[in-house]
């Protein structure tokens, strides 16, 4: 058969971009599914202890995919699930689907499923499938794994899907995958949508709060022991909390260590901004939790020493004044006393706390700095209860308008022409007779007072001197007498 007539994966996709997509998606998935197909084909050969078909009523494809999916989730926010974790999961999955199956049958079926994924039949080697590669006219061998089983930092073996395993999973979700990078992106996307990261973050947050609680409790108890030895019992008050803390630290250390490692790897792999952000915030949270835990550990490891130190203090011989304790006796009793009495003793008590100090002498620079100090207004200023009111500014009319003053001045000048002495009361009387009103009479007094000093006087020929007091109906005050100046 001519090559051109063969369906060719690379034709439809242009140049092959990577090894993974050298086949059409359908063909590739078919190859990747081959191990499961084989299990499906041979499912009836597997029998339980009673000779019954092991996979009776079970969909082997579903079981394999579910197992792979479980491994993927485990490796997304951690270093993967351990062998026991995976086994337990598959076991419980089978017993949920077929509750009537015995536990040993379920366990055996789970073994077979996991064995299928990891190619137990071929002694855990890579799967090998041949296919015809049209461009090169060759039959090539396609080698792959679906899962990898590798030890983590603590030497615990953990399952993770291989790149091909991811490809298969994503292929089943009917998502086009062009290369490894996008494959990881898609997977992260799915995990984020499933809320896996929030879950991990929530766990980390809760664990951190617990760390803080443990630390505060231990710290509080030790502090109490130091303050008042003998009031804290090691076995009842401190030890249980220490044991809990140790367990908590151990468990979280392992868990979060794995998680941190996984996240660091993933951050490098993904390019999607949202996924990166999610991962980075989770990473930050975990680092913070790590610091909090380190402090808890410090508290735990130093608790014993500090407690013993506190306890030994209780046995030390010392002279005693016999004065009751401040916290439990003296302070409460002082508080019960009437405040008015306490106020009298208050100054004595406060002052007795303070040492001898040099008397403060105000020097010039101090005074200046005090004067220059600008007080800051704060909301709790002492007397801010009364709200101040704004009063409108009132404009008072001038009682003696310029016109009036001019008129009166002219009248007065005429009077002073007479070349005689005048007193204020005489002039007001004269004005009254001429029919001046009250304001005009007051203005007479105003103009005359203005002329009291010679320098300001309007009447150059007269000199004002004080001459008793006067009182009229509208104005009263010191009387002034304007004498004619004697010519020199």
């Amino acid at each position, binding site marked *: 058969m001519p090559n051109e007539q063969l369906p060719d994966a690379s034709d439809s996709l242009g140049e092959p971009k990577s090894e993974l997509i050298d086949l059409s998606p359908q063909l590739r998935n078919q190859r990747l599914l081959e191990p499961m197909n084989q299990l499906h084909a041979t499912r009836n050969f597997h029998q339980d202890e009673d000779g019954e078909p092991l996979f009776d009523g079970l969909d082997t494809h579903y079981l394999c995919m579910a197992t792979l999916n479980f491994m993927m989730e485990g490796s997304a926010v951690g270093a993967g699930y351990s062998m026991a974790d995976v086994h337990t999961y598959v076991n419980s999955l089978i017993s949920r689907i077929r509750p009537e199956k015995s536990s040993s049958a379920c366990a055996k079926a789970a073994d077979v499923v996991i064995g299928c994924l990891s190619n137990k039949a071929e002694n855990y080697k890579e799967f090998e499938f041949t296919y015809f590669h049209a461009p090169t006219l060759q039959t090539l061998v396609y080698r792959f794994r679906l899962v990898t089983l590798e030890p983590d930092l603590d030497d615990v073996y953990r399952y993770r899907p291989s790149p091909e395993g991811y490809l298969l999973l994503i292929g089943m979700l009917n998502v086009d995958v062009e290369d490894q990078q996008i494959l990881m992106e898609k997977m992260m996307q799915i995990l984020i949508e499933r809320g896996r990261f929030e879950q991990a973050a929530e766990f980390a947050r809760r664990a951190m709060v617990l760390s803080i609680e443990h630390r505060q409790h231990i710290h509080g108890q030790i502090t109490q022991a130091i303050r008042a030895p003998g009031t804290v019992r090691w076995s009842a008050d401190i030890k249980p909390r220490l044991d809990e803390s140790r367990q908590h630290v151990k468990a979280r250390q392992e868990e979060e260590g794995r998680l941190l490692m996984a996240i660091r790897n993933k951050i490098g792999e993904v390019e999607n901004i949202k996924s990166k952000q999610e991962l980075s915030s989770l990473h930050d949270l975990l680092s913070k939790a790590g610091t909090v835990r380190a402090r808890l550990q410090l508290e735990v490891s130093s608790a014993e020493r500090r407690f013993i130190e506190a306890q030994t*203090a209780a046995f030390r011989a010392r002279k005693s004044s016999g004065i009751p304790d401040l916290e439990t006796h003296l302070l*409460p009793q*002082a*508080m019960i006393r009437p405040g008015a009495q306490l106020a009298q003793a*208050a100054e*004595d008590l*406060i002052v007795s706390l303070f*040492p001898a100090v040099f008397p403060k002498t105000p020097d010039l620079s101090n005074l200046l700095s005090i004067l220059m100090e600008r007080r800051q207004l*704060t909301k709790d200023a002492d007397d801010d209860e009364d709200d101040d009111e704004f009063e409108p500014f009132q404009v008072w009319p001038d009682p003696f308008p310029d016109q009036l003053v001019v008129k009166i001045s002219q009248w007065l000048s005429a009077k002073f022409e007479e070349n005689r002495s005048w007193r204020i009361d005489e002039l007001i009387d004269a004005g009254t007779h001429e029919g001046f009103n009250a304001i005009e009479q007051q203005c007479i007094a105003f103009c005359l007072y203005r002329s009291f000093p010679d320098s300001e006087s309007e009447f150059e020929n007269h000199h004002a001197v004080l001459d008793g007091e006067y009182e009229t109906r509208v104005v009263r005050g010191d009387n002034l007498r304007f004498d004619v100046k004697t010519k020199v």
Partner: protein
Amino acid sequence: MDNQNSAAARLIYRALNLSATPANDVEYRELLARYRASPELQQLLAEIAEGMELVVLDVSERGLIIAPARKESRFSIRLGDLRKNLSEDQRVALALSFLAICAVFYPTTALIEDDSRFPMPATLAMFRDTLTGLSGRMNALEDSDDYSREELRPGWSYIQSLPVSIPQADRASPNSIEGLVRMALNYLIEYGLVNNVRAQDEGEAVEFTATHRLRIQLRERTLPRLFDYVRSGATA
């Protein structure tokens, strides 16, 4: 002999300087050693101190602690030096704040009297809670808060009548419990009785530690006075 006189005077001068410690002052250390070794110097210093209305409270490798002999001494501070125009209520509340701070550092007399044990560092919240906790407990014990005679109103009710804190108040003011405690702490820091320690981590509260001087002042002066005051009330 002149040498003795000047040594005594210099030692008094050092003791009056609140920031001088033997730890970083060689001459102070030497003077202290001489003082502890020589009964004559001790006698001389006591006489000079007496003439200046001072009294020696304690001497140790941590320094010579002297205090004013009387409240009227020129070396004694007055309440007005700390804060002017305090009302009677505020005076009571401030005195109780000082005592609460001391009680947090030195809850037991045994702790005060044992020089080899040191008080735990404490935070502002601990002082505040000691004060509010005590007055709250007394309030709960009290059957009614009806005091027909104002002069019989107990001291704790002054504390009860104050808000715990005033939001957004930056200044230490006598109008809230936290403000009072902060005021008292500031005075204690100013006069070398309390130190504040920088917080270890961001977000953690500032911690305060009591100095040796506070222990001595409390042991030699405040505690006996407080005891006398409480006892006089009990017998009255």
